[in-house]
């Protein structure tokens, strides 16, 4: 069980302190699949980084199974059972997929075991197991390998930061199954996913909507999901890497509501 208590996270911008996370508290109970959604820039990824220990909160406490881990390092938290899949996974020259899976598993897993993790994320294992985790891999391939490393760890809490980002719609359909399977075999563990994907939200036990560094709403899927459909917090199509759905700029209109031609617009707007 993971508990966040009154978490604040401020950053300095110039001389001004900006509150990225402004007093957030929630609990991820065991055996639960929780999805955090909300508009971009609302602080979701920061929450994931705070949980993994990459960022330290300005105030508040984080507890894992009752133990205060606020001051624990990334390594300590990983060893205590927190896994974290990055939104934009990292590339390594010379390190093979197999090496990475072995590091993730923390032991010398056999090639066939390692292959199973890859198969589960929809990669043809024999084509990838000895590939380097370098620039020759596409963004989508890298995301799948990132997810496979979390599967290989098999820890009690798995945090995924926008697993859909950077993956095309067709591939993501298969990836949904990975999360559905994780949902089904959640025994004694819990999963926190940051996602805008309707399909992911549909398999959530609980949904937390984060906006402006605060929890806007939270509750069971049935309570929350209907109100999200049609908003950017629950999109039915995939979004590009970075998580920004395509946005159509508003058409400029005059006082009577008629569209204004571009060449008539005042400074800077054109």
């Amino acid at each position: 069980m993971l508990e966040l208590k009154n978490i604040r996270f401020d950053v300095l911008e110039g001389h001004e302190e900006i509150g990225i996370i402004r007093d957030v508290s929630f609990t991820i109970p065991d055996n639960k699949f929780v999805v955090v959604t909300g508009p971009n820039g609302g602080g979701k990824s920061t929450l994931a980084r705070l949980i993994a220990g990459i960022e330290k909160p300005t105030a508040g406490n984080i507890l894992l199974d009752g133990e205060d881990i606020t001051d624990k390092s990334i390594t300590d938290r990983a060893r205590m059972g927190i896994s974290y899949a990055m939104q934009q996974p990292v590339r390594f020259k010379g390190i093979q997929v197999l090496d990475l899976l072995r590091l993730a598993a923390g032991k010398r897993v056999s090639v066939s075991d390692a292959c199973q993790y890859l198969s589960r994320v929809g990669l043809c294992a024999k084509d990838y197991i000895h590939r380097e985790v370098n620039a020759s891999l596409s963004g989508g391939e890298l995301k799948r390998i990132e997810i496979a490393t979390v599967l290989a760890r098999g820890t009690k809490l798995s945090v995924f930061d926008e697993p859909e980002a950077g993956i095309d719609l067709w591939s993501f359909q298969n990836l949904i199954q990975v999360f559905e399977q994780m949902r089904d075999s959640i025994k004694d563990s819990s999963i926190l996913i940051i996602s805008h994907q309707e399909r992911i939200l549909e398999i959530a036990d609980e949904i937390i909507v984060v906006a402006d560094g605060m929890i806007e709403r939270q509750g069971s899927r049935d309570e929350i999901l209907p109100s999200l459909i049609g908003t950017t917090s629950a999109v039915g199509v995939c979004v590009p890497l970075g998580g920004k759905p395509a946005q159509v700029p508003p058409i400029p209109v005059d006082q009577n509501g008629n569209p204004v031609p571009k060449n008539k617009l005042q400074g800077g707007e054109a």
Partner: protein
Amino acid sequence: MEFKKLDEIQKRILMEVADLHTVPEGAFNIRSDGQLAGRASSANIEIVSKEDGSGIDIHIKPGTKNESVHIPVVLSKSGLHDVVYNDFYVGEDCDVIIVAGCGISNCGGMDSEHDGIHRFYVGKNAKVRYVEKHYGEGDGTGKRILNPVTEVYMEEGSHVEMEMVQIKGVDSTDRSTVAKVAAGASLIVKERLMTHGEQTAASGYYVDLNGDGSSADIVSRSVARDKSYQKLDLRINGNAACSGHTECDSIIMDEGRILAVPQLEANCTDSALIHEAAIGKIAGDQLIKLMTLGLTEKEAEEQIVNGFLK
């Protein structure tokens, strides 16, 4: 059969530089502290001492396939300055592996130095894989110095692949590799270099692509740790319709410093030459990723460096 004339230190060094536990199969020449410690020729590969005693000539008969030559050098005495000329004559249509390498164990107070000058005359359509490892150890104040010179003369259609590795323990090195590549011939070099402590390393490549259809791919990956310094000088001259690529990819750590000097000279409008050079510290995200897998920062660093130099 075990090596008779070598002591434990020498045997260990031999393992480091040539992965040799026992006498190798095929032709070999082992040089220890400036003396011959063992030699064998094979039916197709003949090793003979130069008349003036300055080194050895290795003659590989045309058409020799799937054979190997090992010529490791071991230095375990302090204050020894060993210079040796090794000339390889590789016949046409050969397909051979040549394993060289030098290890120095210097526990004394005086500098030990080995300068190996290797010249390769590679016949038409021959294929050579050359592996060279350099290694140093010992806690004496004397420096361990290696200044190898490699010259490669490649005839039409030949192919040479060189792996040059120097990962540990050499205080000072100034390596120079010169290649002249004829039509249709290709040269591939993979260099791996790591320096630490106060070490300095200079590595220069000077490749002439002289014939149409010739090519060279020189890739150097290096890591400079502690207060070490490296200078990497990669030059390709395109003198014909050829293609050349150099890549200098370096990680700096601690107070390490690196100067990369990629140079291309196109002397023919049909030469296609590319260079890439990048120097930087280990990316923070790489460390973070491995730490989220449960590694400490130090362990993460080791994994990243090991992978990079693999």
